[in-house]
């Protein structure tokens, strides 16, 4: 390839990459799926409490998941994820929830509603509800919840109110009486209200619980992490800025120490960073704090791959080879070094990805992506650029020799 053509191709590559960075950097960052530790939110792990004689089956958990999903949806948050873990656990993750503590309350309640008579006999229960809505009475300035029963419930409720005229009917939620109105007359239309000293928010939460139905089992909070939005944003902004400054410093170092190959290393590291971020977006990988560590490690290994190549080429030049021969020989040898070093680490990363959970998994996924892309960029892109550069100038001093 002649000199002019090499210069043109190099220029096209650099300009294209520059444009890609300029136009893709923001969208990629915005599309990155951030972990709760970076953007704030709530993560709860609930464990079903087995009762004697009632084993927890897959069905129980699936049913509970459906009910919990309804409740989470009713919170009106954008990004949520609910999934079972092991045999008896449910993990709920909600991003950017302003009041995580209140959300936990709504999720954890079993929401078993019962209407009892004075003797404590259960007359009607929440499973016969078809709807529950929070309402506001402007006259009394109090919020209340309006209930609608299904056919069976309406019959039961009619019987219950007929039998208890003039007596209180106790409304019990999860074993706790929440109100006990006196029945004035039989109610036969299947509509009822729960009044209490609720504020609007409490009435709304109660309506949500009753609408979604009772959980088939009670749950225990095994783990709860709520990160306020300001703390998450703070860690993200600081980590990102620190990461960018750190990488810029490395790029400068490479340029200063390795001259022309350093510049080539910088170009391939920029491409590397773009490719890793792009893959993370495509694969829906979640970036967490440990993920940032993996990214730092993988950038380190990408830089290392370049250093291995250039040190090798310098050696070959010192042994008296011409530039072109040195580049060829350097790559041939460096190929196996980089291949083995990256593959050994990849072996460990894949094990961690397969067997690890949470933190460890997140770390391993990003590291694996990084290692694979690193082998690609270092062994093909860098090599191509170096070939172009050697067509442009044969001055070995530019290679730091």
């Amino acid at each position: 390839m002649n000199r002019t053509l090499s210069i043109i191709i190099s220029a096209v590559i650099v300009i294209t990459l520059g444009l890609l960075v300029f136009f893709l950097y923001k969208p990629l960052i915005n599309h990155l799926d951030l972990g709760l530790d970076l953007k704030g939110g709530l993560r709860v792990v609930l464990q079903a409490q087995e009762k004697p004689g009632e084993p927890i089956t897959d069905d129980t958990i699936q049913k509970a998941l459906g009910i919990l999903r309804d409740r989470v949806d009713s919170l009106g948050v954008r990004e949520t994820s609910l999934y079972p873990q092991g045999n008896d656990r449910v993990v709920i993750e909600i991003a950017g929830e302003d009041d995580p503590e209140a959300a936990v309350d709504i999720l954890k309640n079993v929401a078993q509603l019962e209407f009892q008579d004075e003797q404590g006999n259960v007359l009607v229960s929440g499973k016969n509800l078809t709807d529950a809505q929070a309402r506001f009475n402007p006259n009394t300035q109090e919020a209340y919840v309006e209930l609608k029963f299904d056919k069976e419930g309406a019959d039961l409720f009619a019987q219950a109110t007929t039998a208890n005229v003039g007596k209180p009917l106790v409304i019990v939620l999860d074993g706790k009486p929440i109100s006990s109105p006196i029945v004035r007359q039989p109610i036969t239309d299947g509509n009822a209200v729960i009044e209490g000293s609720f504020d609007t928010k409490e009435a709304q939460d109660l309506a949500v619980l009753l609408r979604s139905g009772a959980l088939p089992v009670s749950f225990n909070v095994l783990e709860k992490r709520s990160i306020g939005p300001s703390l998450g944003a703070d860690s993200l902004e600081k980590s990102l800025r620190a990461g960018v400054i750190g990488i810029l410093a490395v790029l400068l170092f490479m340029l200063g120490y390795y001259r022309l190959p350093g510049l080539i290393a910088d170009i391939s590291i920029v491409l590397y960073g773009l490719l890793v971020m792009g893959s993370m977006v495509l694969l829906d990988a979640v970036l967490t704090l440990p993920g940032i560590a993996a990214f730092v490690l993988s950038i380190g290994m990408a830089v290392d791959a370049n250093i291995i190549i250039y040190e090798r080429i310098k050696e070959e030049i010192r042994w008296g080879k011409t530039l072109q021969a040195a580049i060829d020989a350097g790559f041939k040898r460096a190929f196996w070094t980089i291949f083995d070093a990256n593959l050994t680490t990849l072996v460990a990363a894949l094990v961690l990805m397969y067997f690890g959970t949470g933190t460890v998994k997140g770390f391993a996924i990003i590291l694996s992506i990084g290692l694979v892309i690193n082998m690609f960029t270092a062994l093909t892109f860098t090599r191509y650029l170096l070939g172009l550069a050697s067509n442009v100038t044969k001055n070995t001093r530019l290679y730091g020799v």
Partner: protein
Amino acid sequence: MIIERRKIFYIISLILIVPGIISLFINGLNLGIDFRGGSIVNVRMAAEVSAPEVREALATVGLEQAEVQKSADNTYFIRTSELDQEQTKALLNALKNRFGEVELMSAESVGATIGRELSRNALLALGLGLVLMLIYISFRFEWTFGVAAVAALVHNVLVVVGAFSIFQWEINTPFIASILTVVGFTINDTIVVFDRVRENLRGTKRPDYLALLNKSILQVLNRSINTVLTAVITLLALLILGGATIKFFVVAMLIGFVVGAYTSICIASPLWYEIKKAA
């Protein structure tokens, strides 16, 4: 040059490792709630208050045992045994009653079972990873390299864990990630050195292992130094600018990387020499 002085390096390594091991036996590790179970609440007050005042407020709701730590910008970390929803609310209300505006930055509660599972799974995965790396290296190189590389890895993990025990820095889940990063970096670094040894061995009938190792180390020394230097640059940026949440996470990696570069040259290679000599 390097291999002849291996006794000195062994002594340096003992100095690095032994105090840590002793400390591990005496003080153990400062386990955070991720491993031990418990709650930690992070709040920001509107105005400057002192830690004893916060403690007083907490005592009104029966949380006098809480550990209160002041951090920057009027934020406080309150560590307690595991709190349920009601207790968390009581804690926040007690603070609000006393100090007015209180912003909840984060609240974490972890049951002790979760912590045990977490450490067990991480250790299992790490152990399996080490075995597979050993197999891969034995397959691509020779078993002697695998043993020396894994020994160097264990050495580094011990140094980092030991440092965390001596200084009693708190350990939470991100620590596992930093240990994994150290493992990844060390193995990468060691393999590059061994790769050069393997190359120089090729075609030599009766190798003088000592001279060959020295030559190989000298050939890759520049690369080792530059690689660890670039990694340290990035880590220092993260340490200085990265905010409080990731401080110890970065410190663990920083220690591990520097020690990792040292071990691949001054420990892994001499160890391989010893194994080769004995075999």
